[in-house]
């Protein structure tokens, strides 16, 4: 029983992180694109429609190239990632689905998922993106 109580704590924490993160992430993506890479770890990898982008510099270049966007998230799910996979580093899996309209492109449906890791600062805990994977739902058509 104790274990499941603990697990519930992790689940609550993951949900709070996901709620908060998703608002910040997509707002930054749409309105303050230049600040977006600050949400990523230095060594984070983004896999965007099958293309891998890694490291702050490459991420900056990539997001500069990406046309301006309007994201709408409809579905959000999250799970605490098992500690054996993360060597004890608190990590949350966040998955999203919704629509996006990039400048010059039609509206599309997308799926995206994130691995967020907890970075402790003296005052609070900050969630940073360790991994990010994005795909259009209709990517093949």
């Amino acid at each position, binding site marked *: 029983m104790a274990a499941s109580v603990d*697990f519930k704590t992790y*689940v609550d924490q993951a949900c709070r992180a996901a709620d908060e993160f998703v608002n910040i992430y997509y707002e930054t993506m749409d309105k303050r694109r230049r600040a977006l890479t600050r949400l990523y770890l230095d060594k984070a990898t983004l896999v*965007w429609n099958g293309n*891998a982008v890694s490291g702050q510099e490459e991420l900056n270049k990539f997001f500069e190239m990406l046309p301006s966007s309007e994201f709408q998230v409809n579905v959000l799910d999250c799970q605490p990632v098992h500690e*054996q*996979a993360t*060597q004890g*580093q608190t990590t949350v*899996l966040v998955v999203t689905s919704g629509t996006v309209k990039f400048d010059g492109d039609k509206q599309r449906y997308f799926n995206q998922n994130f691995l967020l890791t907890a970075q402790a600062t003296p005052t609070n805990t900050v969630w940073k993106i360790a991994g990010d994977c994005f795909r*259009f739902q209709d990517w093949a058509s």
Partner: protein
Amino acid sequence: SQSTATGGFPPSHDDRVGSRPFPGSRRRKGRGPFRGKLYSEVTARGRARGRARNDDDDGDVAMAEAHEGPRGRYVPYAPRSGRLANINITVKREPGERGGGAGRDGGRRSWFKITIPYGKKYDKSWLLSSIQNLCSVPFTPVEFHYDHNRAQFYVEDATTASALKQVSRKITDRDNYKVGCSHPPQLCMSKRYDGSQKALDLKSLRVDPDLVAQSIDVVLNQRSSMGVVLRIIEDNIPELQSLNLGSNRLFRLDDLAELPLKAPALKVLDLSRNELKSERELDKVKGLKLEELWLDGNPLCDSFRDQSSYIRSVLHTWGVGQSPGTPRDPLRPRDPRDPQGPPGTPVYYSVYDSSDRQGLLDAYHDGACCSLSIPYGPHTPPRNSLNEYFKDSRNVKKLKDPTMRFKLLKHTRLNVVAFLNELPKTQHDVNSFVVDICAQTNTLLCFTVHGIFKEVDGKSRDSVRAFTRMFIAVPAGNSGLCIVNDELFVRGASPEELRKAFALPTPTPSSSPVPTLSAEQQEMLAAFAMQSGMNLEWSQKCLQDNDWDYGQAGQVFTQLKLEGKIPEVAFLK
């Protein structure tokens, strides 16, 4: 530490890791052009070096002439000009008194001036301790000082001076260059070079019979030895494409940091069966544009037992990964699928598509969790059509009640598999699968599978669905994976997806006549493959050999595995 960051190699470099040693053809020890030209060229260079050394001696009377005989010793791996790397010591007799030690016994004693050309570029304590380590007698340097670039000091007697002279050129400096070695390692290397393949095989160099016979210790985990090897490569075979450093007890790769400069064409690096403990070591050779990197038998693989073949097998059987590099057009998705189609049905999905998903128990971690959600979309059918899924749909954007949020997240292996077992029976179209590797460390593999399936029973029979499923897995025995997180999106298929779905025949596992198996046998096979970790082909062979007696096949498998009689190929998926 950022254990979940995608450190080490970027996840995309799936083809850079492997578990097999060199293919046999690369192992042939040929005699390329390397052998023929090497010896004479080096000899000439060695002589040139010998002359240069004379120049260093300023015409002083050198002790060496009395003790060492003619300067016949040449230096075969002479560094290129302008990069003096060896440490030379010259000894000069100094008349007169000097320092506090002079005249202790009341008489005049001989002083010897020790000069180390370019000694100024070394740290004093390092230099002195290096000399002391090699010097056969203890010495006390008196009046250590620099004269231009030279380091100089005095010692008190001829024996010490003589011993110091012997040390000359045996010291390795910080450019990893040791001069004490002579030509045998080089002959040994030429013997191990295959010119036709541009491949140098230095596996187990320390126990090379030729070197052992000559009592030459080339220990590649020492900077000096690796320095010699790199220098020989640079000078003789800069076109090198394949380098085998297996079984050399390498525990760090600092000494290989210059390899990208010395062998810019290198494509294959075999570091198998060394003592590399951390993935981070690999950062030191990341300048190499490798196509293959072999790491099996290193401690760093232990956390992901046989990680390389594991990841390769995942990539191989599940479709493919993504390609590296910044996309030119971010709005144009990349299709990473092999045009040939996947090589076989992933074992996971052959169990998932069977009539009983209990077999998936072996695929999940005890503490695994799983959830499902239904994304909105233009093709999402009316709610009642996805009814089977909606009752479990977990959308924390809409669902704010913590109790419900908790309840809809299935936790622990039994609950997860029970939940999956309740979902409609399916048949997946393996040709539709696309896999993105999202993150990869030595304790985690995170990947997303996108694809199409259809339901094969119930009210929605033959309804085609699209799915996106995110897995996080940790290493398990037999180069398998063990799922700790599983998140499934299910939605209706688009007209385009419907058109393409199941258009191609489902591939069967390579060279195994699966279609002739009964449904029962196929299920048994899938379960056996899952439990044993062997691929379908070998699992089937094992079952057939035991007349499809599952228990007996299991016993035979366990016994053979204990005895180490099952080849590695049986576990390649």
